[in-house]
């Protein structure tokens, strides 16, 4: 259905944009093991995105590539958190902690969906997201418990990303109509509980920041998305009739 497709686009775009950004790290990570780890996460997310865009595309009569390469900025449905820049490694880890905690809870619940298509994708993805979350948690602990510099960097990174959590938990008209997906508001508590546990273990305070009212689900995006799409789409758009 159209609602199912719209929902798949939302969570598919999240993963697509994050994969696009994580891909940058490959050849630039602090150690080779992290080139591999961040590359793995990027690949997983790209895989999830392709499944979700393919699924949405069957309802919309479009291919995954048409959706990825030929939509304009306002047609994307990603949330602002996923559009936040890589920054330094600490920033990438903080962003990864928040996105993976969210996606883990989301896919866990979505795996029980009455939509077999969404449930299937979620069930497959959740195992990989568990690894992403573990990766982010381990590094959060290491950076928080490492040197003074690493601690202040991860603190700053959490302050910078925390405002974008709220958007992930906002219900809207889609959720009034479409009940085959968990309500965003129902994810808030479990996700925040996990995050608070990690912060407690890392002996970090929960950032006291005001939430951003960013609204990517309706096509109103952060300033970061435009340049991300410019680079991602440049070649495909230069040869609109080509196949690759």
């Amino acid at each position: 259905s159209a609602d199912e497709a719209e929902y798949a686009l939302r969570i598919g775009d999240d993963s697509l944009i994050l994969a696009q950004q994580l891909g940058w790290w490959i050849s630039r990570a602090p150690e080779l093991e992290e080139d591999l780890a961040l590359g793995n996460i990027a690949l997983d997310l790209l895989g999830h995105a392709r499944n979700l865009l393919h699924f949405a595309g069957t309802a919309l009569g479009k291919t995954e590539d048409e959706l990825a390469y030929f939509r304009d900025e306002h047609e994307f449905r990603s949330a602002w958190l996923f559009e936040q820049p890589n920054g330094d490694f600490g920033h990438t880890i903080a962003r990864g902690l928040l996105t993976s905690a969210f996606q883990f809870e989301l896919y866990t619940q979505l795996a029980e969906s009455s939509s077999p298509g969404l449930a299937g994708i979620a069930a497959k993805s959740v195992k990989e997201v568990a690894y992403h979350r573990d990766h982010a948690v381990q590094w959060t602990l290491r950076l928080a418990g490492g040197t003074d510099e690493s601690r202040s960097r991860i603190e700053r990174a959490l302050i910078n990303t925390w405002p974008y959590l709220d958007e992930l938990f906002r219900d809207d008209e889609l959720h009034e109509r479409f009940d085959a997906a968990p309500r965003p508001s129902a994810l808030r508590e479990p996700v925040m509980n996990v995050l608070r546990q990690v912060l407690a273990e890392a002996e970090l305070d929960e950032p006291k920041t005001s939430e951003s009212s960013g609204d990517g689900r309706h096509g109103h995006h952060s300033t970061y998305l435009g340049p991300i799409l410019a680079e991602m789409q440049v070649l495909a758009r230069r040869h609109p009739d080509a196949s690759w």
Partner: protein
Amino acid sequence: MSTTVTSPDDELQADFDALIEAEQRIEPRDWMPEAYRKTLIRQISQHAHSEIIGMQPEANWITRAPSLKRKAILMAKVQDEAGHGLYLYSAAQTLGIARDTMTEQLIEGRARYSSIFNYPTPTWADMGAIGWLVDGAAICNQVPLCRASYGPYGRAMVRICKEESFHQRQGFEILLELANGTPEQKQMAQDAVNRWYWPSLQMFGPPDDESPNSAQSMAWKIKRFSNDELRQRFVGMLVPQFEALGLECPDKDLRWNEETEQWDMGEIDWDEFFDVLKGHGHCNAQRLQHRRQAHEDGAWVREAAAEYARKQSAQLKAVA
């Protein structure tokens, strides 16, 4: 009557020679001549560096890959190269050199890596040409290395070769798609092949009569075939594939010589080869700069991880 005095070193040398002769593997705990060890360290670390530097020309297109499928394949490929680098650094470490030392040598510009990675990748078609030609040449070089006399090296090569042949096929597929695509795509493919063909032939090293170190490496059964033999084999493999792609081979003088039963090739520009080797390639500076930057930007992360590990083990001890 004279007695033959055998020093302990001579005995060890004799055992070593016998193992080599019998096509047995030398393992890290075995005695080996210093020259053998040094040759291996140089070759393996150079190979590892090549994998790591070799990530860059392709990483350059990850963000711009023109389809999601190609993006996934490319990401996986560049990531594989990081994995290869890791295997090879591990193999070199068994010979008594630390990974940090090798990293330092690389970023300070004191270590070599394959010159091929100093060429730029201006178009998407370079992803195809690198896979097909560069990985193709690498495989020709590396398949015999799976039987290299030093155990850890040979075993690393087995894993690597399996993945490389996969990469080569993917490169070929990229070119095939382009060659059968729009006129611009086909031109892009031909241009890329033109740019990479000769450098890929140079990957086998100078002609045999100018390759002084080869004989010893062959005696030690590290190397199994001469540079020219491998180049022949590679070109022979390419010819039918050029046909399948419908692309032209940039070597207009290439022809099969019935008499010698060999491919007669056009002249390779060895001046360019040595120029790039000496650091004057398009991208030598950029490749090292990129690696150095990643290393320096990551210093605080590595320090944090080390400090965290130190604190954790101190805590464990305190508890125990």
